[in-house]
């Protein structure tokens, strides 16, 4: 089959020669009396043009596939028989040229995944006993120590064993803001070291890395067919042979070879077979660029039809770890406030308690100066910490040490408790000085993102949580939710999803992917949220690599657009064939003009799909960061 390889390789030359000969032939035909020369040129053009087409048709036939190429080949042979040489020349040219343009434009719709793959690291610097060595990433093994310099890509998934620096993880999370990483933190292959210097101990290489899995998932997702595509596939399987049969029947009845071969050309299912897949490729590819991994056309369609979104609370709507949410200050004197907070920081630093750590993080963030304490604080179990001058802890601690709260101070504490927060009180021997409310805070964009979903017509937004009703209510009332379901065990969550589905709702479940895989699997669309959620990539239908809630909005918008685009493309394709058939019946369409309209319709569906590549602002930001990364 050397011939086939030769032809595939020189497709463009065939097209070029075919085009030149056809142009010359038509010129001779119209502007000179040299009819014989014109006919010879057109015959030559047709033969050169039909050759690669027929070869394709034949090799497909060997595997029992009736291809579009076969229809065209028969049509061209038919045109020869009737002596319509200029038609056969034009048809072959349009078919080859259309195929060429199709290839070029299809490449554009596939470009998103291409740029992703090109971000995959290729080389690494390994530390060996003999010093540093440049190696191919494929040659790396687990436990290899890899050196990463500023501007370098991190070539493996692993743990930093030496050094620190700012890492841009846009390739993994879609978020281009550099993150600070130091010893013992996890780094991911494909991310970029902005500044600093790292030595990383290899844990995973190549396809095993999170980045490798993302690429594999997206590649497979682009080929996972939507219900519409599956329908078209089944349809096309019978459609193409049917066109062949119909053309034959028409010929047998009318004895008009011209009409029969025109029918063959008009019946080509070109735009139909390319229309739905191309929308999917563009939609899934452009989502992937924004850190939104959608597992195929079926998921896109399901997500576009979702009418109910259920949210897990802890770690999904909220940050997932305690934070200082409110600080109420009862000190009038600014100097005393400064002293007290500095002391508070020093005291809390001595404790490993989660609440203490939340306070330390908050105070460090507020740039409170570090001071050293004269004596180390004493821990009162289950109550708090005590020094000579300050009491830090809960109400019991203060009561046990004889500090009475007045009415106003009591009200302050109550206010914090009503928000569903844990309270930490700071008092001296007489008075309450500070009251801190600590809880699991909402992620910054949550409320705005949920409002956006509402604006998009998604009114059934329900929070599911295992927490008690009071703290669920406290978080829930800050969000535009339509319902809150509290005190649910994991199996209750599952039952709730099934009940919703039984009522006829299309349910999406949004979780952090860590312990809610049953719910993710049961929902019509399971959406996992969070950076590097390795395990979730496999269970969830949609993975939002970026923990930002706006990504959810983008994901739903994109899936709706993609679904609409698929429908448009199918309508365009079927409409074109119908219009051509009507044209044929009215005698307005011949073989050449039919082929022209056909090829045009293929380009129209591809261009239509390309609209999906236009990005929202969020996606754009991510893209620019990646471009910079590639240029380096």
């Amino acid at each position: 089959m050397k011939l086939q390889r030769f032809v595939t390789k020189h497709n463009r030359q065939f097209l070029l020669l075919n085009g030149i000969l056809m142009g010359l032939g038509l010129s001779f035909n119209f502007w000179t009396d040299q009819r014989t020369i014109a006919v010879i040129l057109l015959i030559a053009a047709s033969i050169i043009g039909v050759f690669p087409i027929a070869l394709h048709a034949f090799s497909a036939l060997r595997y029992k596939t009736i291809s579009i190429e076969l229809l065209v080949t028969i049509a061209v042979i038919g045109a020869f028989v009737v002596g319509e040489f200029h038609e056969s020349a034009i048809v072959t040219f349009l078919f080859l040229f259309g195929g060429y343009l199709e290839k070029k434009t299809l490449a554009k719709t596939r470009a998103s995944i291409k740029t992703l793959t090109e971000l995959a690291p290729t080389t690494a610097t390994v530390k060996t006993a003999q010093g540093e060595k440049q190696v191919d990433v494929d040659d790396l093994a687990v436990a290899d120590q890899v050196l990463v310099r500023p501007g370098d890509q991190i070539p493996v998934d692993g743990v930093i064993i030496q050094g620190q620096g700012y890492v841009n993880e846009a390739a993994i999370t879609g978020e281009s803001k550099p993150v600070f990483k130091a010893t013992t933190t996890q780094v991911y292959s494909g991310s970029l070291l902005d500044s600093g210097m790292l030595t990383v101990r290899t844990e995973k290489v190549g396809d095993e890395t999170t980045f490798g899995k993302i690429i594999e998932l997206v590649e497979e997702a682009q080929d996972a067919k939507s219900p519409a595509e599956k329908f078209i596939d089944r349809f096309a399987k019978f459609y193409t042979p049917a066109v062949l049969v119909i053309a034959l029947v028409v010929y047998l009845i009318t004895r008009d070879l011209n009409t029969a071969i025109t029918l063959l050309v008009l019946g080509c299912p070109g735009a139909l077979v390319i229309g739905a897949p191309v929308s999917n490729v563009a939609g899934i590819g452009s989502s992937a660029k924004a850190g939104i991994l959608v597992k195929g056309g079926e998921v896109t369609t399901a997500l576009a039809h979702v009418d109910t979104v259920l949210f897990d609370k802890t770690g999904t709507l909220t940050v997932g770890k305690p934070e200082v949410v409110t600080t109420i200050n009862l000190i009038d004197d600014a100097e005393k406030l400064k002293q007290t907070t500095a002391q508070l920081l020093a005291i809390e630093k001595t404790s490993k308690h989660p609440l203490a750590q939340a306070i330390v993080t908050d105070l460090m963030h507020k740039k409170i100066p570090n001071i050293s304490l004269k004596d180390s604080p004493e821990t009162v179990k289950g109550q708090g910490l005590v020094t000579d001058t300050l009491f830090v802890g809960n109400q019991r601690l203060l009561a046990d040490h004889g500090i009475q709260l007045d009415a106003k101070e009591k009200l302050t504490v109550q206010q914090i408790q009503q928000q569903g927060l844990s309270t930490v009180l700071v008092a001296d021997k007489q008075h309450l000085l500070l009251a801190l409310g600590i809880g699991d805070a909402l992620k910054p964009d949550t409320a705005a993102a949920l409002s956006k979903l509402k604006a998009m017509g998604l009114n059934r937004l329900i929070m599911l949580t295992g927490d008690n009703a009071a703290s669920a209510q406290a978080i829930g009332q800050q969000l535009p939710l339509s319902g809150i379901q509290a005190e649910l065990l994991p199996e209750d969550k599952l039952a709730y999803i099934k009940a919703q589905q039984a009522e006829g709702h299309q349910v999406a479940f949004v979780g952090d992917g860590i312990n809610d895989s049953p719910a993710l699997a049961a929902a019509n669309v399971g959406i996992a949220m969070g950076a590097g959620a390795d395990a979730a990539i496999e269970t969830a239908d949609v993975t939002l690599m970026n923990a930002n809630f706006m990504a959810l909005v983008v994901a739903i918008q994109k899936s709706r657009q993609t679904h609409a685009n698929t429908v448009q493309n199918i309508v365009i394709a079927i409409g074109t064939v119908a219009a051509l058939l009507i044209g044929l019946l009215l005698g307005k369409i011949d073989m050449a003009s039919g082929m022209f309209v056909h090829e045009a319709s293929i380009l129209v569906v591809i261009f239509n799909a390309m609209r999906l590549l236009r990005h929202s602002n969020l996606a754009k930001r991510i893209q620019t960061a990646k471009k910079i990364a590639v240029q380096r």
Partner: protein
Amino acid sequence: MAKVTLALDELTCPSCLTKIKQAVSSTPGVTNVKVLFNAGKVKAEFDPEVVQAEKIAAVVTDLGYEVKSNKTTV
């Protein structure tokens, strides 16, 4: 069972997909053939005692598609 991934040039016609899939599937010792139309890749499992990855690549090449790279994992 070993796994092979072949990276091809761009695939543009849906009938090419059927063709490649059938040709590779009918090679003895090869199972679970997947042709990724958009990524331009062929993935398959094969029995290394019956057939080699090079042979699978050759089947695809003979159909007229250039195999750009060929990666095997055991």
